[in-house]
């Protein structure tokens, strides 16, 4: 794995935290800083240069929003297959281009504005606090980073572990969406139950509900943030805005409920919901 933007304040701290967690970081990239090292990891000027010395298939990017698109293009052109884009506030027209380019070359993009992905106890390509996670049988996919920490933390405290937890990103447009991840969880033998952490805005929860109806056999629990959000106001995430009546918590909750998803009202309820489901699965 390569870290793009490794020499920045955030990039260097997060590199240390990922290394501590056991992530195999082979190189970092920051234009103009080639030859330096960060936490013992060699830094290169370009992704291609880094790959020449250290084979890798994925990158995590902390590159500032103004050059995030170029960094993503660079990674795609160099042949990487998974990009985790942590950066917030990337112009949405840039994100549309990243997404189009990634689709063209068969590259998977997590984010932008994602906490990344963690396989508890094994590795993490992300910024999530590792101490809130533990290995187990639950898969978590979220729009919000912090809210996914809360859900994972609740489960971990109750002794319920996770297979994989990831964020699709809080922006209006993101690389993969809930449906892509649901496919993977459905196919993954170790994942016994799935948690969706959604929020107001966009229509990815409604699409997830449609998909679950037809293609998901595993039990799914969902929490939707924003039951009490006002209309027409952007709630932090560029994606979290109820516009023209679309994307309210209510429409999402109804759609998920109709697809047989257990929708909880408070994040804490995740523990009893998952416990009941796992009990049912094992009997």
């Amino acid at each position, binding site marked *: 794995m390569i870290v793009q933007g490794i020499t920045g304040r*955030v990039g260097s*701290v997060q590199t240390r*935290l990922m290394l501590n967690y056991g992530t195999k970081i082979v190189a970092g990239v920051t234009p103009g800083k080639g030859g330096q090292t960060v936490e013992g990891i060699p830094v290169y000027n370009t992704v291609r240069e880094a790959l020449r010395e250290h084979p890798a298939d994925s990158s995590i990017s902390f590159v500032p929003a*103004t050059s995030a698109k170029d960094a993503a293009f660079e990674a795609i052109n160099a042949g990487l297959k998974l990009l985790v884009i*942590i950066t*917030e506030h*990337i*112009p*949405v*027209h840039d*994100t*549309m*281009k990243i*997404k*189009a380019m990634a689709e063209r070359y068969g590259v998977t993009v997590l984010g932008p504005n994602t*906490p990344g992905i963690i396989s508890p106890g094994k590795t993490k390509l992300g*910024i999530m*606090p590792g*101490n*809130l996670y533990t290995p187990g049988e639950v898969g978590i996919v979220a729009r*919000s*980073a*912090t*809210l*996914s*920490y*809360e859900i994972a933390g*609740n489960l*971990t*405290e109750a002794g319920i572990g996770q297979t994989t937890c990831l964020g699709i990103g*809080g922006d*209006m*447009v*993101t690389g993969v*969406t809930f449906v892509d991840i649901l496919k993977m969880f459905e196919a993954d033998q170790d994942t016994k139950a799935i948690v969706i952490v959604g*929020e107001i*805005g*966009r229509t*990815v929860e409604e*699409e997830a509900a449609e998909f679950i109806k037809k293609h998901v056999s595993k039990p799914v629990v969902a*929490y939707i*943030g*924003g*039951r*009490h*959000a*006002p209309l027409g*106001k*952007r*709630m*932090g*995430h*560029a*994606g*979290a805005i109820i516009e*023209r*009546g679309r994307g309210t918590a209510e429409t999402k909750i109804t759609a998920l409920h109709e697809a047989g998803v257990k929708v909880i009202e*408070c*994040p*804490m309820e995740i523990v009893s919901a998952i416990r009941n489901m796992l009990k049912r699965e094992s009997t």
Partner: protein
Amino acid sequence: MRLFEFEAKAFFSSNGIPVPRGEVVETPNEARDVAKSLQKPVMLKAQVLAGMRGKAGGVKLARNPVEAEEFSKQLLGTEICGCKVRKLLVEEYLDVDRELYLSVTIDSSKGKPVVIASPEGGIEIEEIALKSPEKLIQTYVDVFTGLEPVVAREIVKKMGFTGDLLLKISQTLWALYKVFEKYDAVIAEINPLVITKNQEVSAAGAVLNLDDDALYRHPEVAVNPEERIEDPVELKAWKLGIPYVRLDGDIGTIGSGAGLAIATVDLVKHFGGRAANFLDTGGRITQEHIENALEIVTMNPNVRAILINMYGGINPIVEGARGIVKFIRERKLQIPVVVKVRGNFEDEAWKILEEAGVDVIKATQTELAAQRIVQLTQAGETH
């Protein structure tokens, strides 16, 4: 960021979209002069950042300059849809033959630009979608190639046009896409696109919403937040780059991420309290950033308690904790403050807060923090 209609029309016009002749004014005298120079009946349009302006009485027809002056007096300074009317757009009255709908926006699930066209315009797009969904023509556009002229013509042909109008309308649609692309728009909409009795086209209604995250590369756009944001607290927050939405309760809230901040507002309500605001620090926490956030929250005089909810993922919560303590000390803050904080370096953050006597929740559950702050607020009421 939503532009005023007159601003949107200026960008439309300079990029080849025909708009009605007219000028923006701030006084009844100016309105009269513009009406006089246009030598036609005029429409007076209140410049407010709200939809449904027409239904709220924000648009008036004046048959002559005297009426233009008189009606301007009635409109200027009033409030329409909660926004103060500071400016009017005075435009020539168009002899309408037909009204169409054209827009370019972003499909957030596909992540692509989408052109939406309908041969029926002049009403809100939601109504068109309900009334005659079969007439909505949706076309996805490759973000790299943009809207090709031939595709624009195909769309307009589907709307039922031929000959000269086919060319005029498709040229307008093509130009609309260019505006969307050039200014990093989230929505570029013409509603209605008027076809006059002389078979000319004119963008009588214009909406242009730009991506806040791309404003840095558009120095040609005058941001003037004072004119756009009515609430003084929201204005201050905007200037500091902090996402903030004022709500009607008395418990100030701060979350270290949008989803967490949204859930914090929900949970305060769930336990019988009412949040005074939504505030998201994003992944930008520093000591100063938290102090700014607290400054904004406490600007709202209704705030009687504050709940801070932070995770140390990308955020340095130790700096956050220092900022909280500094703000409470320097401002001699008297209202209850509850801080729930977990994540990387949590021990150090807890220590800083506890040593300063701040009420700390060390659990993961936001529910516990919400319950606590609601209790403290209600206890305050009995004194």
